[in-house]
């Protein structure tokens, strides 16, 4: 409980003093007498006259402050809007994105900045506990208090400041020196991290690179009840959960992303002044009283962190750039694009990428030896191992331990012998008595701000059967296998909300050619260590030629599971194969539908840094509805012109249906 300092303070102090005198000098009658008189006096007066007088003074001064605030138009200042998270609404008024009533001092606070300002001033006179954090308003809303105190030049005698011990202790514990934006990159095999995540790290004074994990983070996440079940994704998308701010230690976040989910982490040190760091933390403290309805696409982790950065430096206007959705990588790109905002970038590789790079570093024989050690400790006494130098032995044992820990973290209920084997490997390692050498891991995917932007518009033209066409496509997000891969997780595709309009010239028809709801492909090259399957899912519509129907709309749902392999014959090739199931719905089919299964094989290859090629062939046989089969070919090429501009040449073949298209694609 914070100490309360308000007007009757002198009496309170006297009271305590008197009480202690009473105890320590019981024999001095006179003193005792005086004390009793004094006590009675206080008991009589304290609850009545000082409070009344205080209330009077308080009211008078409050009126004065409110008037001053009105005159200065504080309620329409940007600072106040940042503090209360007000956004202009469609009708020209204001509405706060904040959804916890305890965050506002006025019942109308969510939509009325002036009423909120007046109520806040009034509450500053009171030691009543407010907000979810249950503190006096001065302490629960330290940033509001500080700003209003400075702008209205509070008279400390008429509005005494309260001691906010909880805040002071919390703030001091950060030992804050600077702020770092943390971006655990997207990793497709975990749908929870398809788009990546962002959080802030509060770096401590005197920290070195090897003690960064001791810092606290500021993290925003939805609070999901344990038995959410299938309602989870739906409620997550439509704001059915509350999001809260927390200060999870960075070491836990590193474990979560790097060790367990195998995601690379990018760290962007922000160039904030000491004052900006303080502003950020003060507002973060206030947000302990806040909760926001969590919307997966827009008001998500990244969005609310931007609001915090906007408050730290009100010249940034970061949240203004996001209207419909906030993709974490976009927020990173935006922050990196602000001149002078980022002072340094650090890379923290995932465990799986550490293993990949260490394996690349070794000749094949030693690579296999490390793998054998992880399976059979008898290898440690083999001549192949014994003849190696100490440093190389240490390297192989470290790699074997990395394998084992990767296996332990990625298998559901790992067999206990994996853990025992890891202990044994580490015991052998500890007996070598030399420290492991620093191993530099070069990232497979460059940092996100070098990648193309999220949305894409294309114009193209070509031939289909006996006709020519022009088409325009717009795609909300995010990345497909042929898009320029810099800054994106390799071999991963997420296309969401794409629409293509096409005009056929000879038959003079404009139609909705294609629409994609979601088209996701995750290729995970397998080898002796990594065994994750590849998978894909695609839902949307396209235009088909089938039987007598020349151009027919066709809705489809396709899903498949398979495997991929990577090779380095030319530059980098990924081969993949899927077993898949598909359902079609179109009036071109008998009974309007067909359902079947089949397979796809394909190749994805980088010919040069700018030139990429993909080829695939599928065969599907439909056993339900219109009993038919389908043989498809696809060959596509992309050439990158600029970070956000590329060219495509694509050929699609189906039965009696050939489609060649050349297009230019711009990312925005």
């Amino acid at each position, binding site marked *: 409980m914070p100490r309360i300092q308000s007007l009757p303070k002198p009496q309170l102090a006297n009271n305590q003093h008197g009480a202690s005198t009473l105890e320590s000098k019981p024999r001095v009658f006179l003193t005792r007498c005086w004390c009793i008189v004094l006590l009675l006096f206080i008991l009589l007066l304290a609850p009545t006259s000082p409070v009344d007088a205080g209330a009077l003074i308080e009211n008078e001064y409050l009126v004065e402050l409110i008037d001053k605030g009105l005159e200065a138009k504080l309620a329409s200042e940007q600072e106040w809007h940042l503090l209360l998270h007000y956004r202009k609404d469609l009708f020209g008024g204001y509405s706060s994105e904040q959804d916890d009533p305890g965050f506002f001092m006025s019942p109308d606070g969510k939509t009325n900045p002036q009423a909120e300002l007046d109520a806040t001033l009034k509450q500053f006179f009171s030691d009543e506990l407010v907000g979810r954090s*249950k503190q006096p308003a001065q302490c629960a809303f330290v940033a509001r208090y500080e700003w209003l105190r400075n702008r209205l030049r509070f008279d400390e005698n008429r509005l005494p400041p309260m001691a906010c011990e909880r805040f002071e202790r919390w703030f001091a514990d950060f030992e804050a020196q600077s702020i770092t934006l943390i971006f655990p990159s997207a990793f497709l095999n975990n749908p929870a991290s398809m788009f990546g995540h962002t959080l802030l790290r509060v770096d401590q004074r005197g920290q070195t690179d*090897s003690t960064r994990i001791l810092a606290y983070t500021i993290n925003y996440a939805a609070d999901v009840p344990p038995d959410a079940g299938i309602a989870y994704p739906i409620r997550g998308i439509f704001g059915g959960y509350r999001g809260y*701010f927390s200060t*999870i230690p960075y070491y836990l976040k590193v474990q979560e992303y790097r060790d367990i989910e195998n995601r690379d982490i990018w760290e962007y040190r922000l160039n904030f002044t000491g004052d900006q760091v303080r502003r950020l933390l003060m507002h973060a403290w206030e947000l302990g009283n806040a909760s926001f309805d969590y919307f997966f696409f827009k008001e998500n982790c990244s969005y609310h962190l931007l609001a915090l950065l906007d408050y730290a430096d009100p010249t940034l206007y970061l949240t203004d750039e996001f209207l419909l959705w906030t993709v974490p990588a976009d927020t990173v790109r935006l922050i990196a694009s602000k001149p002078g905002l980022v002072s340094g970038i650090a890379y923290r590789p995932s465990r799986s990428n550490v293993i990949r790079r260490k394996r690349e570093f070794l000749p094949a024989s030693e690579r296999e030896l490390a793998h054998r050690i992880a399976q059979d400790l008898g290898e440690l006494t083999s001549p192949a191992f014994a003849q190696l130098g100490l440093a190389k032995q240490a390297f192989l044992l470290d790699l074997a331990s990395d394998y084992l820990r990767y296996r332990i973290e990625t298998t559901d209920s790992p067999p206990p012998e994996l853990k025992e084997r890891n*202990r044994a490997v*580490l*015991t052998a390692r*500890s007996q070598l008595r030399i420290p492991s050498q620093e191993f530099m891991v070069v990232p497979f995917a460059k940092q996100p701000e070098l990648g193309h932007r999220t949305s894409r518009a294309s114009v193209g033209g070509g031939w289909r059967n006996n006709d020519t066409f022009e088409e325009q496509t717009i795609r909300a997000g995010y990345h497909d296998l042929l898009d320029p891969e810099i800054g994106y997780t390799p071999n991963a595709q997420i296309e969401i909300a794409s629409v293509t309009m096409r005009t056929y010239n000879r038959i003079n028809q404009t139609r909705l050619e294609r629409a994609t709801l979601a088209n996701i492909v995750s290729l995970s090259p397998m080898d002796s260590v990594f065994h994750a399957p590849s998978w894909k899912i695609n839902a949307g519509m396209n235009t088909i030629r089938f039987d007598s129907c020349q151009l027919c709309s066709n809705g489809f749902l396709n899903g498949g599971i398979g495997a991929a392999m990577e090779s380095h014959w030319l530059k980098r090739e990924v081969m993949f194969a899927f077993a898949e199931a598909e359902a079609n719905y179109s009036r071109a089919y008998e009974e309007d539908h067909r359902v079947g299964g089949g397979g796809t094989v394909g190749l994805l290859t980088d010919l040069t840094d700018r030139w990429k090629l993909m080829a695939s062939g599928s065969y599907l046989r439909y056993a339900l509805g219109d009993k038919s089969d389908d043989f498809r070919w696809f060959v596509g090429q992309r050439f990158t012109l600029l970070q956000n501009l590329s060219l495509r040449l694509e050929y699609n073949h189906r039965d009696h249906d050939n489609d060649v298209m050349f297009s230019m694609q711009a990312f925005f």
Partner: protein
Amino acid sequence: MLKKVIMLSVAVLFGMQAGLAMAANPDTGPGCGLGKLAWADYSHQKNIGPQVLMATTNGTFGSQTFGISTGTSGCTNDGKVMAEEKTTLFAQLNFENLSQEMAQGQGEHLASLATLMGVPAEQHAAFFAMTQERYTSLVKTGEASPVAMVKAINDAIATHPVLAQASTR
């Protein structure tokens, strides 16, 4: 079902159900009811089901325990780890990384533990060598109780010719 197990574990871990925690895990962690479950259970979310469910919310481990200005609960005060629990909590939650790095004679978790224990940066190499040398006994102690491991390291520092002089705590 799996999620329930996980949430329960998290609750147990941070002493929100202190009675249960004590019953299930007598004396295995720091004095704030912290059980020995930690990430072992979180990591069972590897299979795709729970991950799909987690997809739209960024739901994450520990966000309640470390909630800003949430008052005192378990090992935390307004979301910050209590000063007297910092070292043992760190040792507990990073035990796997710490044991790997002790064997390897270096690493950021080990450097961070040394810092928490008051070993100045210029003595970290000596600290690393010491924990590497005592790897087997430290890990054995730590598997039973991280508190005991921290104590064992402290004792080792106290009797170490170099570290005993340099340590600030």
